[in-house]
């Protein structure tokens, strides 16, 4: 009976709770009803208007790309006016018909039409389809003539990238093209992208995308129920990308490119104090304008199949044995470590009595031999025997410390170019790690004349020369104007430091890290010795580049030739002793030359490499000589311009 009583109580509780719940439900439904009343009766008019013209549609407008200028503000990459044809998709009733009409007017081929259909599939129904982004004036005027027959067609005046110096700058500035899915993953492109926008593919265009791309604009339209634009309600203007200012002098760049015409190779020049790259020519080259609207097959094949490889930026992506251009640095290392007295005499006896080590013979390049050599003469006349012996005494590990310190073995321009190579400065540790072999002394010996494992880019050789020429100070090489560097200060700092001969509180013979604009040498006299020897090499009789010298102290320069072998020289070759022209192109030596100028109070360093050009003194030094004159002639102008700029900033 108790249970029954409880059950009755439980039943009552359930029913009571149900009624409370029901009351809540009624309240909430009343809430919904009143909301409905609000929307549909009180605010009806407002929502009716909104419904009638509620569609807000946005069109993104592409920004203009930032321009790229040279040191003197000459425009290297601009935005040119182009004629385009766009199709507003939702204004078209029959896409096939419209395309057919357009095809007849501007003459599209089957391939292009297929591409358009594919493109259309990826777009939203209210997007704009770019039929052609580069119409000729004739096509453009024809379209305008038949415009009334073409629904949704919109002739547009737009801009596209233009490189006025075309071939002269392809490797530095790079080029633009359509964004690939991979490009769209980059945040700076993803955030600012508008369909049809061209993005950087190589070089400055690629690495400075963030600066150059700009911000798109937005046009907002009210659209009626059938999808036609009624009125523009909002327009956020697009913003052009920022200007990128290079340190390149286009006049010198043009001249360097001209000097290289018909050859494969590179010329680099930089300011030995500020680190500004004045020219960085690579040959052969190509026209970056051809890439802007997608390169055609014929042009592409031509570029791709050229055996001299125009696409490779030889200044930073070409790897070469430095050959004898490495000798000043070997001499410097030997002197710094006190390995040998510069007055030590070694006899070079020619091919009949080569240098021997463990039964292996090492020849000097000079068949008849140099005779008795001291260090200065050995640099001047580029005697290999002297350097074999010096390298043997020095050892590869000490040499690599100095070589790395002066700029070899690491890329020069950081992440500006995705294809820049690091090169290689070998040492015993490297060989054990990379090749799992121990180092042979014979490898040290050939390393002494810049052969063997060592690999450098032309720009690295230029940097190396610059850092010796400025008295042994570390500089910051750059190709984009760096506002944070006050050029006057930098030059004064280095020059004052040299005149003061600071006490060295660090041991410069250790493998230490040196800050920018700080000394790298152990003893000043060693640097001076090397510089003097290089002077001899160019300006004294028997010097290897004596023929390319200038006597006018204004242009007088000092340099070092180099001839880098691309294969092993056999005894047969030595016997034949063929001229460069008689050897198959691919087997000819690379010709190299590094120099700095003017000798008194130097300011510029230069490196020249002619692939398979034969000897450095014949193929490379004359080009350097010509370019040095041009650079020095333009120095005053550059100085004035740069000082004017810094005083403004």
């Amino acid at each position, binding site marked *: 009976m108790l*249970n029954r009583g*409880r*059950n009755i*109580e*439980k*039943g009552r*509780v*359930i*029913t009571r*709770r*149900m009624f409370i*719940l*029901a009351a809540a*439900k009624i309240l*909430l*439904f009343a*809430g*919904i*009803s009143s*909301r*409905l*009343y609000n*929307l*549909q*009766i009180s*605010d*009806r008019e*407002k*929502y*009716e208007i*909104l*419904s*009638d013209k*509620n*569609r*807000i549609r*946005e069109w993104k407008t592409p920004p203009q790309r930032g321009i790229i200028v040279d040191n003197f503000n000459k425009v290297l990459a601009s935005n040119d006016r182009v004629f385009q044809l766009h199709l507003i998709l939702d204004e078209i009733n029959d896409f096939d018909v419209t395309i057919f009409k357009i095809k007849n007017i501007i003459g599209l081929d089957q391939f292009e039409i297929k591409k358009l259909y594919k493109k259309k599939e990826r777009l939203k129904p209210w997007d704009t389809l770019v039929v052609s982004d580069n119409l000729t004036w004739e096509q453009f005027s024809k379209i305008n003539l038949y415009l009334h027959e073409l629904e949704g067609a919109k002739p547009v005046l737009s801009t596209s990238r233009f490189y006025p110096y075309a071939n002269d700058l392809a490797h530095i500035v790079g080029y633009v093209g359509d964004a690939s899915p991979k490009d769209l993953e980059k945040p700076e492109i993803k955030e600012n992208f508008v369909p049809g926008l061209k993005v950087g593919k190589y070089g400055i265009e690629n690495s400075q995308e963030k600066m150059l791309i700009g911000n798109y604009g937005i046009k907002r339209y009210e659209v009626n*129920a059938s999808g036609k634009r009624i009125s523009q309600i909002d327009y956020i203007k697009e913003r052009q990308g920022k200007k990128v200012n290079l340190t390149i002098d286009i006049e010198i760049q043009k001249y360097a490119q001209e000097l290289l015409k018909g050859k494969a190779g590179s010329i680099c020049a930089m300011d030995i104090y500020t680190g500004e790259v004045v020219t960085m020519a690579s040959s052969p080259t190509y026209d970056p304008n051809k890439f802007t609207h997608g390169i055609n097959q014929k042009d592409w094949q031509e570029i791709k199949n050229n055996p001299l490889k125009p696409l490779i930026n030889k200044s930073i992506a070409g790897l070469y044995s430095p050959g004898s251009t490495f000798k000043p640095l070997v001499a410097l290392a030997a002197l710094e470590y006190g390995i040998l007295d510069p007055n030590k005499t070694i006899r070079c006896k020619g091919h009949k009595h080569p240098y021997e080590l463990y039964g292996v013979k090492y020849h000097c390049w000079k068949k008849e031999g140099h005779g008795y050599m001291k260090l200065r003469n050995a640099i001047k006349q580029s005697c290999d025997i002297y350097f074999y012996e010096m390298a043997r005494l020095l050892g590869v590990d000490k040499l690599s410390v100095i070589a790395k310190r002066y700029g070899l073995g690491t890329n020069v321009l950081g992440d500006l170019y995705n294809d820049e190579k690091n090169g290689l400065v070998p040492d015993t540790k490297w060989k054990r790690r990379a090749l799992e072999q121990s180092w042979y002394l014979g490898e040290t010996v050939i390393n002494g004349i810049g052969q063997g494992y060592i690999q450098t880019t032309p720009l690295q050789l230029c940097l190396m020369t610059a850092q010796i020429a400025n008295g042994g100070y570390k500089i910051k090489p750059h190709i984009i104007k760096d506002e944070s560097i006050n050029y006057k200060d930098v030059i004064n700092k280095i020059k004052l430091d040299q005149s003061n001969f600071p006490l060295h509180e660090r041991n410069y013979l250790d493998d230490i890290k040196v800050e920018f604009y700080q000394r790298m040498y152990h003893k000043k006299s060693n640097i001076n010795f090397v510089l003097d020897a290089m002077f001899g090499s160019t300006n004294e009789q028997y010097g290897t580049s004596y023929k390319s010298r200038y006597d006018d102290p204004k242009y007088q320069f000092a340099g070092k030739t180099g001839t880098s072998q691309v294969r092993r020289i056999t005894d047969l070759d030595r016997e034949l002793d063929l001229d460069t022209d008689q050897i198959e192109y691919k087997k000819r030596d690379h010709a190299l030359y590094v120099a700095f100028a003017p000798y008194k109070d130097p300011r510029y360093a230069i490196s020249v490499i002619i692939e398979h050009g034969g000897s450095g003194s014949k193929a490379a030094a004359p080009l350097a000589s010509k370019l040095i004159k041009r650079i020095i002639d333009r120095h005053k102008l550059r100085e004035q311009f740069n000082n004017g700029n810094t005083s403004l900033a």
Partner: protein
Amino acid sequence: MLRERIQSSNYSFLDKLRSIDYLLILLIIAIGSISVFAIYSTEGGKFSFYTKNHIIRLSVFFSLFLVLSFVRVSTWYKNAYLFYIVGLVLLITVLFFGISASGATRWINLYFLNLQPSELMKIAVIICFARYYHRIQSSDIQSYKFLIQPIILLIIPCYLVIQQPDLGTSILIAGSGIAIIWLAGLNIKYFVYSGLLLLVSLPFVISVLKPYQKSRILTFFNPDRDPLGAGYQIIQSKIAIGSGGFFGKGYLKGTQSYLEFLPEKHTDFIFTLFSEEFGFLGSIILLFLYILLIYRIINVGLVSRSFFAKLYCFGFATAIFLYVFVNIAMVLGMLPIVGAPLPIMSYGGSSLLSIMLGLSIVMSCKIYNQEQISVY
């Protein structure tokens, strides 16, 4: 006396027919017919895929409803836990073998139907709880021992559904379960306390939500935050409903829906379309039909003798109310968009199946309303 003894009288078939709630059937048919017209309108007045499918499902599930109505209520009682376990197993199956659409994994492919087990769970929780509280004496209800079990039974499916992720269904499952606990007579203070606790922990809860869920909630408070993104649905839905006015724009003339402004117009936003075309008048009538439906279900509970039937009917009525309220409040911009279909109206097989199943149990309660199920 732990074994359950079931007292049952023998009903003749005529008795059974006589005790059928014909008004309830009529209401189902009415709402079902309206839904066919509404779905037809979402397809722009063309008799194609959605309409065809919806009609087929309505007829199949309605027949199923009629057949299952004659299952004894005691059978439902006996199999209540089994029902729950099956639901749970299906939910776990989804976890491993579920098929995905637009970022959520909610369905099992049954070839003729993509079953959404979370929809079945809505009913399973009610029937399971009804059985649970049927047995517990009113004096024991307040004890922690008997409170902790249903809470665990509720948390498991809710957690599984949130993982899918499907916040809306999970909230509805929780709501139905809590409704039964309330009906069973748990002290009000528990509800007040847990309500306060929820309020306090709200910032934390929001912080663990998925980014899209968070943005929906933020958008709810300020739809103009992102008018072309997350706020788009709410704004467009309000415009559609508001522009309907008193009489509506007329059948098949809802411009908002016709011009594809409404997303998911055949599922979650079906009420928007209906309201745009039939206006305030139509909406109130539809709302009234739902109120009537809920009233009839409550009525069945009132005339039933067993606690199980009472708890089930009241609980199910509350669940239906919740579905209707959450859906309509959502499309009216009164609640965040959580993804909850409108019962019977919305296109979707699983939701329709679970509602029909639930209704058939109600009908069985009605037919066997004199059946007494022993508490011991």
